[in-house]
């Protein structure tokens, strides 16, 4: 089992979510994050222009069984892409064990 953590543009979230549903990844969590990166965002406040590298993005945490990993990563790479600096990153790491609380199933059974 693998955990995929993806940081993507908020504007691409709906597309990514649809793409994940299409390859039957129906269970994941997400939240809004602020981070720093190579991009800078311009702002104006009471006549003062300033730019900040504090950028808002959406963070997705997806746990999948090994055979689905490549498809999932590909789906995110494809749908979250714009080609402009700031498209985000994907991290993959190992998951030791997973349980479904309701049925007490464990391993990849619990991810279905």
């Amino acid at each position, binding site marked *: 089992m693998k955990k995929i953590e993806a940081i993507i543009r908020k504007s691409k979230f*709906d597309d990514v979510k649809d793409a994940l549903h299409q390859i039957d990844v129906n269970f994941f969590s997400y939240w*809004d994050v602020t981070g720093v990166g190579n991009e800078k965002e311009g*702002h104006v*406040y009471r006549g003062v*222009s300033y730019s900040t590298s504090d950028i808002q993005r959406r963070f997705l945490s997806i746990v999948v069984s090994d055979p689905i990993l490549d498809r999932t990563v590909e789906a995110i790479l494809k749908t979250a892409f714009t080609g402009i600096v700031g498209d985000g990153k994907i991290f993959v790491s190992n998951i030791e064990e997973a349980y479904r609380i309701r049925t007490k199933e464990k391993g990849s059974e619990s991810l279905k």
Partner: protein
Amino acid sequence: MDNTLFTVNNVWLMICTALVFLMHLGFSLLEIGLTRQKNTINILFKNVFILSIGLVLYALVGFNLMYPGSFIGGVLPDHFFSLFGLSMPENGLTAEYANGGYTYWTDFLFQGMFAATAATIVSGAVAERIKLGSFMIFTIIYVGIIYPITGSWKWGGGWLNDLGFYDFAGSTLVHSVGGWAALVAVWLLGARIGKFKKDGTIGAIPGHNIPLATTGVFILWIGWFGFNGGSVLSADPGKTSLVLVTTCLAAASGGLSAFLVTLFKYKQYDLSMFLNGVLGGLVGITAGADMMSVTDAIVIGSIAGTLIVLGVGFIDRLKLDDPVGAIAVHLICGIWGTLAVGIFGEMSGWGQLGKQAIGIVAVGAFCITASFTIISILKKFVGIRVSEEEEQDGLDIHEHGMDAYPDFRLNQH
């Protein structure tokens, strides 16, 4: 006329002017409450712009255009060359000016506060996707020229007034005028991304701050004390108190009926529909607030509340995306309120109902034509819709470079 009475009347009208001013705050809060966090600055910007430009335009041209005094054939104001700016008539500050009701200055400011309302109605319907520049151009033409022209037909003593059409405080002349433009604008603009899904289902895009929307409705409600109460055009004790009673009862019964119909139809206690119902009741009573009995007001309000629930669903099914329900509230209930003058109260009768219908159709045809022309030209030459990326990220960050709540990390979707 007794000078004391003149002063009292004038003070009442100035208080009402302040109350109508407050309605702009109410509309702003309602509108941001029922839309998403990422477009808040954009909506507030539009609302501040509408009021500011509305007052200036009303001084430059609107007031004279709306109250020309005399007409050619009941339609065209007959003094094109003295149309611009405010010019105090000789008796403008004396009791002679308006039967001791108010001074020329009060007259201007009270009517000026009304004028901007028509564009505010449009603002809610086109929220979250319209290009700011195009909206501002539209507002300038609509508030500066179109609103005063239709207003002059009735309140300025034009042909609808001669016909016997009745619109006490503007169900048609203010609310429908805004509502028709909202309908045309929403149609030409298209729906927000995510409102109508590919499979044909209707998506819900919930507002981000229901407490603000509720505050907005309460402020609008009290603002209506001035909108209708001031339209008596004096502090006449009997009339003003009657108008306040009918206004409040229609608002209350509008809200109640909207919430009950929603409960029956969708099995939910839906606050947003309750709020829209209150506004529907207020718009509905506005055309005949001084003509109705207590029972009439409650019936008119209840029907308006029901129309809101059916109207919002109907507009969704037409694939028109109206984020705040402005078309149902201001157009549908505006039409209903205008017709209600011919059905209930002191003026009711088939003849009056016919006259009311003529007024609705004439104003509707003029407003649809005008707004269609303006918005189509804008669409062709400047574009009226923001880019997809801007719509997804929110108009605040692109058009204004600002976050409405920079220190909060609430859910932005």
